[in-house]
């Protein structure tokens, strides 16, 4: 028996295909599939919310409302003035099944919140920034717009979809999971910003109905905008609210119509 040397050129045990090519294919394909499924899931949630019966809706609101933290209001000199305007405003709007409460707390960011249990929370900074009755109405009507559009229920729907997605992807590697979750978070935030713009437009309608003009809408956002000019636009892109400039643009567009 004689030993014969073998030629060593063949690499049978390793696939010759390019991994980078596969990477691109899988990433693009994966993101596309993810986006389509996410879109279908959220739009079906929205469809269901639009067609809820009033009883089911109030039941669902009860579930979401239980997540509201207890807030202790701080005394504010303009509390009564704002409450009077709020009461007048409530006569103008058609929002069922909510008991509204108005609370003001000491806080330095100009912000306002609508909680699912009907609590509208104003930071003292935004109260101090409001100069006219129209501006106060604009902010309050914006928060009422969130109830009008059932944004809390939609938020819950989006949250559930997100949860389902993270659970489904949880079977894979955790780095993949975190990347997909952060992409989905971005999409969710984009929906959130759309909700804010929709609430702005709702407030604009109310303002027009109540006063016949829409002056107060722009003046407040313009003032808020002058406080934020130093901040980068990218920060706003990632935050939950639209950039004041974008809000003003959308409002001007609607006013012209």
């Amino acid at each position, binding site marked *: *028996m004689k030993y014969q*040397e073998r030629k*060593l050129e063949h690499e049978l045990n*390793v696939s010759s295909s390019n*991994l980078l090519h596969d990477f691109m294919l899988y990433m693009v394909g994966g993101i596309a599939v993810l986006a389509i499924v996410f879109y279908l899931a959220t739009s079906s949630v929205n469809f269901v919310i639009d067609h809820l019966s009033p009883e089911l809706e109030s039941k669902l609101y009860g579930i979401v409302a239980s997540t509201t933290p207890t807030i202790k209001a701080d005394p504010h000199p303009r509390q009564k003035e704002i409450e009077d305007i709020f009461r007048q405003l409530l006569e103008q709007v058609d929002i069922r099944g909510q008991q509204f409460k108005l609370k003001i707390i000491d806080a330095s960011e100009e912000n306002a919140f609508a909680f699912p249990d009907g609590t509208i929370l104003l930071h003292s900074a935004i109260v101090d920034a409001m100069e006219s009755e129209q501006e106060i109405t604009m902010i309050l009507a914006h928060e009422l717009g969130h109830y009008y559009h059932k944004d809390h229920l939609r938020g819950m729907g989006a949250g559930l979809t997100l949860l389902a997605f993270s659970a489904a992807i949880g079977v894979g*590697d*955790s*780095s993949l999971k975190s*990347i997909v979750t952060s992409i989905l978070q971005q999409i969710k935030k984009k929906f959130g910003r759309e909700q804010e713009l929709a609430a702005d437009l709702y407030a604009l309608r109310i303002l027009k109905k109540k006063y016949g003009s829409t002056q107060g809408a722009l003046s407040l956002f313009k003032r808020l905008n002058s406080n934020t000019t130093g901040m980068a636009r990218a920060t706003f892109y*990632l935050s939950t609210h639209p950039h004041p400039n974008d809000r003003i643009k959308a409002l001007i567009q609607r006013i012209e119509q």
Partner: protein
Amino acid sequence: MEELIQLGFFAGLLMLGYFWGSVNERRHYHSIRRREKKYQSVPAVSFKSVPANIEVKTSKLVIGSTVISIDYFKRFMAVLYNLVGGRLKPYESLLDRARREAILRMKQSSPKAQLIINVRVETASISKSSRKGTVGSIEVLAYGTAINYK
């Protein structure tokens, strides 16, 4: 903002893994091919016993082992292949390199041997992470009996 930073880090690690992983692999294959040619005259076979016509002068146990890790990019790719199934291409070259390197080291440990019989190759996964299903690096051990005949 936080998500962007996270994404940036991830992309950076992927690129780093791809770049250094490819460079390392190419270098390693280059060295493997060179040494395989050099040690081609020492046959390593899987016979359990010495062929009848050979009279053994000396025999000894020879061992070669190697530990190789996969890079970040390939590990991520493996996750993607895991989702859709098919050949787990990123690990193929890892195992191939490790096997060939282990056999080469075994041969190198006894360069004057005329024949290595009863060669066995064993693989073990080394994973320091407690996460389920992760294969970070592997050890391949090759051993056999080196023989010189009269």
